[in-house]
């Protein structure tokens, strides 16, 4: 009983719209759904797990053909995913995985490895500074967010080998520009006007954009005097790189839905079982990669 | 109606002698340096009613609050049945057997009448309140006060008067050894007062001691065996009622002579004397003015220099009438005119701009803004009329405040004190000042002399007359018929929310009014002829 994409209805429980990247992911998912003319319902959970669970329940009640879930947190999905299973509705995880216990409860997970992202950033920094001693300040994501924890861990792994690179200050910038800027300002004050800061690592580009402003206002030269590396690869960071004010960013692709749709369609059509984990690439971009051009192609993706 | 007997019928009984029931000595209390109480003492015997008297601000309420531990005294010992006690809160006082009605109604307006009567001691079974039982008891308790209400209705539905009766009933029902009443009769009319006294006599017979604060000397002589007088926070003297005739008592309270206070002023309506503008056309007229379920349509004309009194029992609709006229309630029938022009009277603000002034009955909830200073409270209405953009300069404010504090003898004479900290009577004076400051053309007063001491009472009435003489129209609600009679040119009698009679000229007598209220024939005045007045 082959079902064509055309008559599929898919519900997507999206975390929220807390960042430019998230907005882009939503936009891209819609676009991808349109391509395959799939009826696509998005529920915005405003960062609350309970809302996501509600959304999934209502998707089940509506009898959709499949459910996409971008889990706000890795735990606590068993019950509701079991309900989905009982209702024979396949679930695909987007952009974040859930804890191992739930492996059997979803069809596949299209995610990037956020620990790996941090590692890439860390390794780039180690490579770039060479043997020189380098004290790094870190702008963390929201306290308690798994991504923040992972990117922190990954980065620490990345610089573990190099005793010359060490993190001197680490505060949360809540993934936002404003906080990124405020925190960076205080870092600069605390580190003797920024003279002692050799590099900044931010868990996302938005915070880095804020930090760059703070550095400029403090008379520092981000990109040359102070190295910067952050994660997500949103257009604005490429703008900064083009201006020579930022050094590197690790891409987290907003197109998680595309592969997911393909997997679901294949599954519904011919019952092909997709692999348990479809990992998206965590590509490193530096000033060498013609940031201007990338900015131009990315700027209309809805970031 | 139970037969009302005149206070003078029963001469004060001989004071019961014997061991003191409640004895307090060396009570002192000062607020931020201001000595409200200074070495006060009082001895209450079982079965006696003990009057606690004094001018506004003398310290009566403070003394009571110190007794029950609501206010923490600086010094003083308190003993009940010879055993020293030191209640630290109303709760402990009640436990010790001392029930109190404080000066302002202190109940939970949002709770039902029944809940208010039994709060904290509701009848329960398995920890659950027995509503039915509680209502039954509540109805019984109120029946003793000849009040028959829907005890399930929230208290706030009822007037101050009724609320006050409920508060008293609660205290009476609680009082094991001592009952303290701070101006319980202020908002009651002759009828309620008599009912209250009947109850109090029963309590006395049961050997309960009663402390009774009032500004009505008649009531003192009617019910009390002993009198203690405070002046400026000090003990001015204590004696049995028999030993202390009116004149001496007044002298003891004021520390000076006072003529009007004792002799009931002879009737001298203003219009009778030729007053500027007394014969003028009406300033404001109301035709067939009314609101369904509130006050039946009525006609009324208010002239400059002309005093109209509203008389009636509680709930007869006097307050409602005044609210309607001031635009605080909206008429659904009839027309109102000011200076011959029709007006809408949609809001108090509008009435204010037409030159009306309104001194409401419920001082605490509708009168004062407790945390604002006396000065700010006094200038409030005037400022409201001038509008936001024309503020009174601080100097003007100070002058106005100073003027009225002097004129009305508000104590303490400190314009920068939050009005909530003033004594009840002084708050009332400040409210009067608020409206006098606007120099209204029509002043509406609902129970203006409530809680005002004998001295101030006379002064205020004199003041009212002066204002009228200058051509201000007056509409006065007062439960003190004697007072109305002394200055009213016209008395409207209300019953069951309708204006039922209109007395003018020589018909304005206490018996006449009482008759009209009781719809009896004025020829043979009903027993309560004496009404109630100083």
């Amino acid at each position, binding site marked *: 009983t082959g079902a064509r994409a055309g008559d599929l209805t898919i519900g997507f429980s999206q975390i929220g719209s807390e960042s430019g990247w998230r907005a882009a992911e939503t936009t891209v998912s819609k676009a991808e759904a349109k391509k395959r003319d799939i009826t696509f319902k998005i529920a915005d959970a405003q960062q609350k797990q309970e809302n996501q669970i509600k959304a999934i329940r209502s998707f089940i009640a509506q009898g959709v053909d499949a459910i996409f879930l971008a889990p706000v947190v890795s735990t606590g999905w068993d019950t509701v995913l079991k309900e989905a299973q009982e209702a024979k509705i396949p679930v695909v995880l987007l952009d974040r995985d859930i804890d191992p216990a739930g492996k059997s409860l979803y069809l596949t997970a299209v995610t990037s490895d956020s620990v790996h992202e941090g590692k890439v950033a860390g390794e780039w920094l180690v490579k770039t500074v060479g043997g020189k001693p380098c004290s790094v300040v870190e702008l963390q994501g929201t306290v308690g967010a798994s991504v923040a924890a992972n990117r922190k861990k990954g980065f620490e792994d990345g610089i573990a080998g190099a005793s010359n690179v060490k993190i001197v200050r680490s505060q949360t910038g809540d993934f936002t520009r404003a906080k990124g800027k405020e925190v960076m300002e205080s870092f600069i004050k605390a580190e003797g006007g920024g003279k002692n800061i050799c590099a900044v690592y931010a868990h996302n580009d938005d915070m880095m954009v804020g930090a760059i402003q703070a550095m400029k206002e403090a*008379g520092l030269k981000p990109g040359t005097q102070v190295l910067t590396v952050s994660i997500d690869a949103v257009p604005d960071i490429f703008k900064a790189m083009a201006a020579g004010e930022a050094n590197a960013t690790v891409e987290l692709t907003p197109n998680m839905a595309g592969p997911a749709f393909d997997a679901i369609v294949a599954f519904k059509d011919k019952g092909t079982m997709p692999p348990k984990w479809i990992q998206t690439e965590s590509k490193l971009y530096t000033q060498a990669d013609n940031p201007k051009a990338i900015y131009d192609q990315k700027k209309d993706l*809805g970031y | 109606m139970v037969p009302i007997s005149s206070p003078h019928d029963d001469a004060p009984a001989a004071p019961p002698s014997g061991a003191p029931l409640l004895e307090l000595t060396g009570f002192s209390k000062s607020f931020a340096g201001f000595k409200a109480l200074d070495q006060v003492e009082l001895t209450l015997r079982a079965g006696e009613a003990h009057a606690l008297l004094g001018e506004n601000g003398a310290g009566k309420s403070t003394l009571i609050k110190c007794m029950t531990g609501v206010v923490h005294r600086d010094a003083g010992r308190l003993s009940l049945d010879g055993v020293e006690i030191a209640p630290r809160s109303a709760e402990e006082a009640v436990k010790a057997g001392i029930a109190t009605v404080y000066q302002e109604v202190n109940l939970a307006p949002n709770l039902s009448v029944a809940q208010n009567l039994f709060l904290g001691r509701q009848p329960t079974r398995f920890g659950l309140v027995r509503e039915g039982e509680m209502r039954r008891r509540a109805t019984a308790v109120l029946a003793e006060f000849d009040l028959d209400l829907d005890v399930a209705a929230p208290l706030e539905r009822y007037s101050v008067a009724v609320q006050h009766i409920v508060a008293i009933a609660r205290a009476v029902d609680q009082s094991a050894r001592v009952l303290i009443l701070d101006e319980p009769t202020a908002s009651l009319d002759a009828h309620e007062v008599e009912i209250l006294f009947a109850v109090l006599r029963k309590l006395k017979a049961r050997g309960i001691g009663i402390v009774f604060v009032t500004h009505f000397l008649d009531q003192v002589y009617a019910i009390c065996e002993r009198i203690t007088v405070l002046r400026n926070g000090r003990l001015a003297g204590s004696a049995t009622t028999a030993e202390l005739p009116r004149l001496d008592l007044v002298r003891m309270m004021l520390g000076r002579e006072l003529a009007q206070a004792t002799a009931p002023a002879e009737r001298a309506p203003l219009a009778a004397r030729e007053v500027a503008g007394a014969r003028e056309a009406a300033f404001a007229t109301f035709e067939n003015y009314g609101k369904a379920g509130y006050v039946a349509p009525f006609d009324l004309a208010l002239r400059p220099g002309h005093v109209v009194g509203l008389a009636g029992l509680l709930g007869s609709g006097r307050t409602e009438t005044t609210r309607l006229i001031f635009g605080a309630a909206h008429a659904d029938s009839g027309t109102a005119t000011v200076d011959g022009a029709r007006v809408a009277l949609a809001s108090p603000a509008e009435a204010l701009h037409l030159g009306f002034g309104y001194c409401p009955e419920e001082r605490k909830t509708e009168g004062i803004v407790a945390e604002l200073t006396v000065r700010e409270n006094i200038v409030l209405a005037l400022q409201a009329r001038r509008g936001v953009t024309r503020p009174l300069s601080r100097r003007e404010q100070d002058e106005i405040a100073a003027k009225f504090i002097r004129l009305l003898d508000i104590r303490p004479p400190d314009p920068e004190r939050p009005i909530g900290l003033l004594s009840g009577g002084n708050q009332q004076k400040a409210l009067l000042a608020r409206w006098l400051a606007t120099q209204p053309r029509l002043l509406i007063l609902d129970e203006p002399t409530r809680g005002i001491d004998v001295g101030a009472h006379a002064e205020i009435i004199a003041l009212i007359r002066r204002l009228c003489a200058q051509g201000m129209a007056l509409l006065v609600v007062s439960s003190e018929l004697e007072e109305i009679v002394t200055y009213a040119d016209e008395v409207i009698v209300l019953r069951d929310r309708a204006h039922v009679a209109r007395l003018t000229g020589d018909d304005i007598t206490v018996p006449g009014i009482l008759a009209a209220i009781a719809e009896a024939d004025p020829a043979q005045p009903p027993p309560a002829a004496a009404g109630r007045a100083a």
Partner: protein
Amino acid sequence: MSLRLPRIGTSQVVALLAILAINWVVSPQFFDIRLQDGRLFGSLIDVLNRGAPVAILSLGMVLVIAMRGIDLSVGAVMAICGAIAASLADSHSLPVVLAAALGAGLLCGLWNGFLVAVLGIQPIVATLILMVAGRGIAQLITEGRIVTFTSPELAFLGGGSVLGLPTPIVITLALLALTVLIVRGTALGLLIEATGGNARAAALAGVGTRLITLAVYAWCGLCAAIAGVVAAADILGADANNAGLWLELDAILAVVIGGTSLFGGRFSLVLAVVGALIIQAMNTGILLSGFPPETNLVVKAVVVLAVLLAQSPRLKGLGSSLFGRRA
């Protein structure tokens, strides 16, 4: 009854100084100030500069609270107005941009005022509506992205400086002066305090409480708009999702620390601003301290409690009786 006599606000000022002193202990260079390309630069300046948005919010919030109301929507209104300003900045002249943004804020305020004063909806729910919908509107304007702009005029409002003082600080001071002028220079202050203290009494005294309510909420909206513009100008972009997030709580906290009761009545504009500075001084201190971020909230809780206890009438009485004076 416990009636607060008009206060002078010593405890707030003391609290502020104490926190600044602590900051100085945790980071010795706290009071260092230098000139960085014509702009004062130092942690102390950061406190003032970062405190500006909340201070501006509190100038509106304090009046609303004095009227026994509350406005939960200010954060969302910030986001809306920031979004409008940012999206117009590069295509229109500054006056147009400001007119649009502030106009929007005023409108939001009027809406709240209408719900409260005319429809008689309880302030907290009335403003909750805009708190929820407002952020949506802001995101609608930016379509969820972070709208950036380059207009130097607008940027000046966030990053510029007047006589070395960062513009946000100047704006805050100016607004404070203006508010004081409007509120205390006219009878508004008295009428607000009367209405907040006892609405029924005020109405019966002829005070036009409705109109005042409307005006006060409108003013609150306007302040939120200004704060929103400043915040957007600061990061050269409008982040509809996060601008002003949870700032309503900070603003309310500032007002209460400033000694204004949530039950209305007496209020103090200056102390509300001091309250805002206390909060920011605390936040900056936390950032400078280098503690791990997990501890931020605990520290915050402790400081807030300490500041409040310092104001507690009980403790005052206790303290002063210790010094032998009558409470």
